[in-house]
């Protein structure tokens, strides 16, 4: 009996020890029932199948040793391409790889699986490419759910095979992007060839590239290479592409694994959509944001870019082959899978946003544009979780992006001045990523305040702190800022709380300056362990016209105002704190506030003569925000559908 008790005790002890080390499931409080309470978009659900009958086919080398579909079932044969100057795996590993695939990087196959609509077309063309994964578990079939949906709605979707660039390989994202352009070259041939099932059916003026993980970076590389005449790292490789790539979609992308000429990849004049999950167990920071910031609109044509941080989404569920284990089949041992969105919900989000983006940018279905300015308008389509969104359209003019110099009082252009009032902290700094020693390579301003006055009376408040952006008359005229304009900025509250401000000095008493009369410093109150601050956060936006008339609206009317969302990726208690510099990613939410709303709030205001914009910290007595990309836009009215709760 005694040995049995001893064994039971040992087993119990082991289980208890193990249990104590597994972190309880911790998720941020879900505000989606409030934020996504009202659907306002009057448009067909982009996540629903369309009316086209869907057909599928394969194109490729017809000789693929490992892929039966690209060997035995190709409808369209393609020639191999020599990518050996863009990808390399030296030594025995390279030989093993060539032995496995039956080819090396000199004979890379142009293989794709296609979902396309039955009909005469011409149809927009969308390529999607996977990222890095076990090269023996083929990734390209994993986007079939998008292929079926998009083809039924009149798009051709080709899922590109780049599995031969997967596995233990690095510095190959240039090859991944270049391969996409090689695929487009084949598509041009398919369109031009009589006898091809796609002859004359492809709208080559409406092309989008979508990529996942390393593929997400590859689409940006492809867009950059598309306009170059030479490969930046070896000019003996000539480029001759020039495709009309209208739109890029980056799904949980990496960034900077390839740097053309050792510079960040520059991309301009494309529409750009970036999505990323907060519980990504592979690319665990919002790595696509630097690329998002680098997208430039320079040709005056209407375009936009948007980024969506999806709470509880992971890395792999965007691809049905990859699944929920972001670091291989054994990663359930260390990744906490309990908090993840159900895969069908995560993919539903992809279906809705990606389709809406492609409909809007390739087929000019402008009714979907508001979704990217303020996702709340599509509440009925989106899975119930939390989203943090970034948005900028091509008419945006930046008054302050905090990149230009080290003078905190100057804006991004002449005629803009910045000023703080009663702030506890004010600094410009680079926005850090959650991962250690990495950042967005983009600056923002940190503003902290505490309206409480130090002293025994804890209810005593001083004048609300504020941060003001003043505009010169000439700039206002040049940018045509008027009642049709929209104030746009990105903002995130943080958990930092400055101490109370000092009481104003009483100059009526003689000798008030004397240090000898100063009361002894009080001991700080004992620290209590504080949980996450769940109090509502808000502030007022104020505009003042040239005549001094002011109008205020609350920020929360224009989007959810949340403190950073903590996400625990690992099962082991304490592992996230060990791995990351912060438990939350600092993702700024973009708010778009029509100036007409201020005029509605204060009819005496002249929105055609706005002189100052003020962020007034009057609704939360203490806090810190990070603020960036403050500017104005004369965005199309198509973007400006009424958002829930804004009273317009």
């Amino acid at each position, binding site marked *: 009996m005694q040995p049995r008790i001893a064994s039971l005790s040992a087993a119990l002890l082991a289980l208890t020890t193990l249990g104590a*080390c597994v972190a309880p499931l911790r998720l941020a409080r879900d505000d989606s029932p409030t934020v996504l309470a009202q659907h306002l978009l009057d448009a067909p659900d982009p996540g629903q199948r369309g009316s086209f009958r869907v057909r599928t086919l394969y194109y490729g080398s017809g000789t693929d040793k490992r892929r039966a579909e690209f060997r035995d079932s190709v409808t369209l044969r393609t020639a191999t391409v020599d990518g050996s100057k863009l990808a390399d795996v030296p030594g025995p590993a390279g030989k093993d790889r060539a032995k496995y695939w039956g080819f090396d990087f000199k004979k890379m196959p142009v293989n794709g699986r296609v979902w396309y609509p039955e009909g005469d077309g011409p149809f927009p063309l969308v390529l999607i490419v996977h990222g890095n994964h076990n090269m023996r578990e083929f990734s390209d079939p994993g986007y079939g759910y998008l292929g079926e949906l998009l083809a039924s709605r009149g798009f051709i979707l080709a899922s590109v095979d780049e599995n031969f660039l997967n596995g233990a390989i690095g510095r190959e994202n240039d090859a991944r992007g270049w391969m996409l352009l090689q695929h487009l070259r084949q598509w041009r041939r398919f369109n031009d060839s009589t006898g091809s099932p796609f002859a004359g059916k492809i709208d080559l003026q409406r092309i989008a590239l979508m990529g996942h993980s390393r593929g997400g970076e590859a689409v940006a590389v492809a867009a950059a290479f598309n306009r170059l005449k030479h490969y930046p790292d070896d000019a003996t490789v000539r480029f001759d592409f020039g495709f009309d790539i209208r739109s890029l979609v980056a799904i949980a992308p990496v960034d900077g694994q390839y740097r053309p000429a050792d510079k960040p990849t520059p991309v301009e004049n494309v529409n750009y959509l970036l999505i990323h999950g907060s519980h990504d167990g592979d690319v665990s920071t919002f790595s696509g944001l630097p690329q998002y910031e680098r997208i430039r609109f320079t040709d005056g044509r209407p375009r936009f870019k948007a980024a969506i941080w999806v709470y509880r989404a992971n890395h792999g569920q965007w691809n049905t082959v990859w699944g929920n284990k972001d670091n291989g089949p054994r990663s359930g041992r260390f990744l906490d899978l309990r908090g993840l969105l159900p895969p069908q919900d995560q993919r539903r989000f992809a279906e809705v946003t990606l389709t809406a983006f492609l409909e809007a940018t390739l087929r000019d279905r402008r009714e979907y544009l508001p979704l990217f300015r303020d996702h709340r308008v599509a509440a009925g389509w989106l899975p119930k979780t939390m989203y943090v969104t970034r948005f900028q359209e091509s008419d945006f003019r930046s008054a302050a992006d905090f990149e230009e110099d080290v003078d905190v009082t100057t804006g991004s252009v002449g005629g803009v001045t910045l000023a703080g009032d009663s702030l506890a902290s004010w600094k410009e700094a680079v926005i850090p990523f959650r991962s250690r020693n990495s950042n967005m390579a983009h600056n923002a301003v940190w503003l902290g305040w505490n309206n409480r006055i130090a002293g025994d009376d804890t209810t005593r408040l001083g004048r609300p702190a504020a941060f003001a952006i003043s505009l010169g008359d000439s700039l206002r005229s040049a940018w045509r800022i008027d009642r049709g304009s929209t104030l746009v900025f990105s903002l995130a509250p943080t958990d930092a709380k400055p101490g109370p401000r000092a009481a104003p000095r009483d100059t009526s008493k003689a000798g008030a300056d004397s240090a000898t009369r100063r009361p002894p410093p009080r001991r700080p109150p004992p620290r209590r362990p504080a949980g996450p601050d769940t109090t509502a956060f808000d502030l007022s936006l104020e505009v003042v016209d040239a005549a001094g008339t002011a109008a205020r609206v609350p920020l929360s009317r224009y989007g959810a105002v949340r403190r950073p969302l903590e996400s625990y990726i690992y*099962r*082991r208690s304490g592992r996230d704190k060990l791995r990351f510099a912060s438990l939350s990613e600092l993702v700024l939410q973009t708010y778009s506030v029509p100036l007409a709303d201020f005029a509605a709030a204060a009819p005496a205001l002249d929105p055609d003569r706005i002189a100052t914009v003020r962020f007034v910290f009057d609704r939360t007595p203490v806090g810190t925000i990070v603020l960036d990309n403050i500017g104005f836009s004369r965005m199309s009215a198509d973007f400006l559908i009424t958002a829930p709760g804004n009273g317009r």
Partner: protein
Amino acid sequence: MMRALRIGVAFMLASAWPVSLHAQREQYAPLVLQLPATARGAGLGGASVAVRDLDAIFANPALTGVASGTAMSLARFSEFAGMGAVAASSALGAFNVGIGVQFVDFEIAAQTIPVRSRVLTGSGVGAGASLAAAFALNTTFKGLRWGAAAKYVEDRVATARRGAPALDLGVATQGQTTYGIAVQNIGPAMDLGPARAELPLRVSAGAARFGVPVGPFDAGLSVSLSLLRGGFTSPAAGMEWAYTPLDGYNVAVRAGVRRPELREQQPFSGGASFTLDRFTLDYAIEDLARGAAHRLALRVR
């Protein structure tokens, strides 16, 4: 994987082939060099020549330092004999270095060498001990790990003590499956009066692979074949079955089979381990002709 398992099982059965060359096997000294040094190695039937571990110094100097840390083990063969071993290894620039000490304590029936293995399980009239201390160094060249260990070995029987220098040489691959070859105990014979005993010169070759996913488990297999100076061959094989319920935690069970080098040893052994982050506690049991040996080891990475 299934093919490897089948080969492993066949190898294990072949290893258990009964033998009758005990006399030939009991002619070497010191005794400590003829015993598995580690609990994990013992649990794997002594098939350690290709196992990357903290205490690889005792089986193949080429694998020293591939895992860095310290390992300590204690063994009890009977109430008359016990064993201790300590090993530490670390990387040092392009090299890996390691040190290791093994010590066996027993009772002797006669003041002579070689000491027969029956001292492990039987009583005697005097005290005896056997010691080996090693310093190993290895590096990578042409894609292989090459290593050497300089050793001092000693047998002490009652008041007499005899020692000798010895050398181990080894080479190993670095892939997912490790292949290793080691030549151990190159050195002069030990004399004690009229008695003379050669070191147990041994050439071993083997392969090992661990962490192969099989359902929710990780399987491992290690096989080796040793050839002793007198022509005696000793195949050995061991399997490991591990489960990781949570990152940093690991539970493993092992079974090993061998053709024993010593009379008191029997073919079968087994073991288990529990890992918590950097710490691993190993247990092994070896079947002996009279009783069983129990080993306990702590490995700290």
